[in-house]
């Protein structure tokens, strides 16, 4: 099958790779760009493990083709921290035991990041509602919810200080 060049920016770096038109965005990110933090739990759009942010919006990278992302700016789990320190959201997951096996975690973090940008002070129900599209088989969700609420609180504290 002939290949097409796809160029995207991921976490601020430009990637230009040739891929088959049928290649999913998830496979492109994982295999062609080597960013394996994005996970595949179902490849049919339900579990949310493959969630990335495409031009700011969360998308399921298993349900998109790489060619559809041409020119886009993408954030993956690898782009959440500055490479040395955890981001406040990641730190909140660490502090609240918001992960066990860590397989759902990249999708959870990106979904939660988008939520907190749109709604910096969510209620527990709002957090649960937003996370309902991300399955976790390990945690029972409570500590993930706590992590997101804690991160919101920290953001508010930082904003209050400023």
């Amino acid at each position, binding site marked *: 099958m002939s290949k097409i060049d796809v160029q995207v920016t991921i976490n601020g770096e430009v990637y230009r790779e040739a891929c088959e038109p049928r290649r999913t965005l998830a496979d492109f990110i994982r295999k062609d760009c080597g960013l394996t933090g994005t996970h595949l739990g*179902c490849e049919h759009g339900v579990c949310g493990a493959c969630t990335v942010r495409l031009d700011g919006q969360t998308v399921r990278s298993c349900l998109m083709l790489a060619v559809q992302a041409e020119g886009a700016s993408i954030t993956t789990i690898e782009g959440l921290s500055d490479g040395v320190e955890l981001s406040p959201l990641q730190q909140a997951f660490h502090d609240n035991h918001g992960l*066990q096996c*860590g397989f759902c975690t990249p999708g959870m973090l990106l979904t939660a990041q988008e939520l907190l940008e749109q709604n910096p002070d969510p209620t527990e129900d709002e957090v649960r509602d937003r996370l309902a599209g991300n399955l976790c088989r390990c945690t029972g969700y409570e500590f993930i919810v706590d992590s997101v609420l804690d991160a919101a609180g920290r953001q508010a504290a930082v904003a209050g200080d400023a």
Partner: protein
Amino acid sequence: MAVQSDESTNLVGARVKRTEDGRLLTGRGQFVDDLVLPRMLEAAVLRSPHAHARIVGVDASAALAMEGVFGVLTGADIADEVEPQPVIYHVLPDQRATDTRAIATDRVRWVGQIVAAVVARDRYVAEDALAAIVVDYEPLPVVANLDAALAADAPRLYDDWPDNVVGNIEWSNGDADAAIAGADAVVARRMSVGRLLGCPLEPRGCVASWDPFTDDLDIWMSTQSPNLARDLLGETLRLPGHRIRVRVPDVGGGFGNKFDFYPEEIIASLLSKRCGRPVKLLEDRAESFVATGQSREVVIEATMAAKADGTIVALKAEVRTVCGGALGTVGVGPGWLSATMMTGVYKIPNVDVRLSPVLTNRAPMGSFRGWGQPEANFVNERLIELLAEELGIERNEMRRRNFPAPEEFPYETGVVFTYDSGQYGQCLDLCQDSVRESGWPQRLEAARAEGRSVGIGYGFHVEATAFGPSRILNLVGLNHSGFDEAVVRIDSTGRVTAFTGQVAMGQGIETALAQLTAQTMGVALQDVVVVSGDTATCPYTGYGTGASRGAAMGGASLMRATELLREKVKRIAAYQLEAAPEDLEIHNGRISVRGTPSIGVTLAEIGNAAYRRLSDFPADEDATLEERYVFDPENLAWSYGCTAALVEVDRRTGVTQVLDYVIAHDCGTVINPMIVDGQIHGGATQGIGEALYEELVYDDQGGLTTTSFADYTLPSACEVPRFTLHHMDTPAPHIPGGMKGMGEAGTIGGPAAIANAVDQALADIGVEVRAIPITPPRLLDMIETATREGGRS
């Protein structure tokens, strides 16, 4: 990442944050699909669309001719090259063998059974090639379910079997029939549990690399049991153990599903052998529903009888597990545990339990968290409530009257097991107090006043953990061991590496075992690393990381090995300090004379002396600092707990929502309460799924109708309540460190509690739950039937 703590005391019992989090939070974890080896190829397998058929022929020529395809394997190709897939449990005296190979040779017996495999440049090409393989099937009559399997004229799955029954076993104690005849109240029910999938979020997979020049097999597997896998790879592929190395990358959840040994591991190895290149073979999610061991499905006919004062006098049960078309790795082991745990936590003098697992044309059964125990608990804890109602005794009072008292332990159940320790009454009190404090009775009243259907249910459970005493397991029919070996080493810088045969799969043992090792040695947590998941460098654990073994077994052996090494360190320090070893203590990595802290030496100095400056080292000690210990327990350790559920049923839709949830629990010494809480939350959520949402549904032709997360519905954040947990921590009497396991607790106690709550919510119309999951259609049906029949009046 922040440094955790430089304190070496009070680590056990502390809510220490996990050392494994950093890589997982930043996308630096390495799961099996993240592995890429030079020249690696990718494989895919072709699965049978028929539940039962003869394979007349397989034509793979078109697939082989495709560009990018490197090889094809069929049943005929491997028939002489491999042994049948292993079954490690032989628990029935007359157990029949199913002996199927990794690829079906002449007949398929379930939808999803592997009939061919392709290895290609990448998975896309491999899947293209699968579509070009032509398999000629001759369909056979399908045994779609239990009733069909047991019918007098049922088609047989194996021609040389007289019927479809795998075998039989019976346990009796006393005279159950006579006791039932003389009882004041008797309840008899036929109850069933649906077919489930453990569903770790990361599907299974492996990367195999076979060196055709040396016949060394290097394999990375997303597995819970690398030592077992190495032995089974060796047996199946006829390779000696030293030629096989199993390594375990980060595992995205296991829940028992990744304990078992699967055909894909054999297939990837053989494909690699053929093409001389590493081969990756993953199941995708859709495949996983038929490719990964299924579990639970069972029909139990049980009778429980009691005297008027509530004393249970007898239990009879006939347990029929609905196996698939072949026995999986653990055979009928889970059914065996269901049957042997039918007496639950109660003293029942007269018992008669029978087990007869039956084959059907469904996918094989395997391991899933709970492993037979939720099924038994569901029935047992339903029956006791029904019996209490019949006798007019408050249900928890009924429980209390039948618990063994704390002083009656070790308690022999009469069916195989001896419970080591327990304070069941106290645990029930703890749960009931919490329910009261949380105001559930008032919430119930208020909801009822509004016309809402709300109920409270309880379930008490025991959990078999620290599995187990090797020789007894062998006697019972397990063709494997249950001990745990640990090795601990101090390096030349005085830092500690703990090597365990247990495997990390999200349950936090890297952290928990480091806490235990650090405290035992007297060093700070960040001075310990735990190494696991490599058969070439890590010790041998019997069984694997399942059966709630990680903390109890892995912890006990590591603690003992660390104690041995601590003694050696003290002897060396005593030599250097010219003191007596007994006068020394180790704290924060420094060995000093008790009471005179100024006289001391650091572990770094001891390490240097042991490896690099032997002039400071006693002549009668071996250089290096390393000890090993093998722990084989004398008994299982029995955790226990009480679950309470507050649920609301919508009578128009049949939807049940869990509003609140309490678990009181005793798992012995707790190494890290934060991790234990997380484990209980996760298990409880799976228990809620099991009770209300999850079911693998087969049609009447053996086709699986639930093959996506849209049909097989896992609980999401919206279906799960907050959990209120209460811990007791009575040390396990015979486990060094006192830990009991607790990984499976939540799955065991939940379903009965939820079913009991649903009964209460619908008591006015007399709905009685006899089958789980209590899905909306199933419950609506029951509500309609009960309403039609006029309910209980």
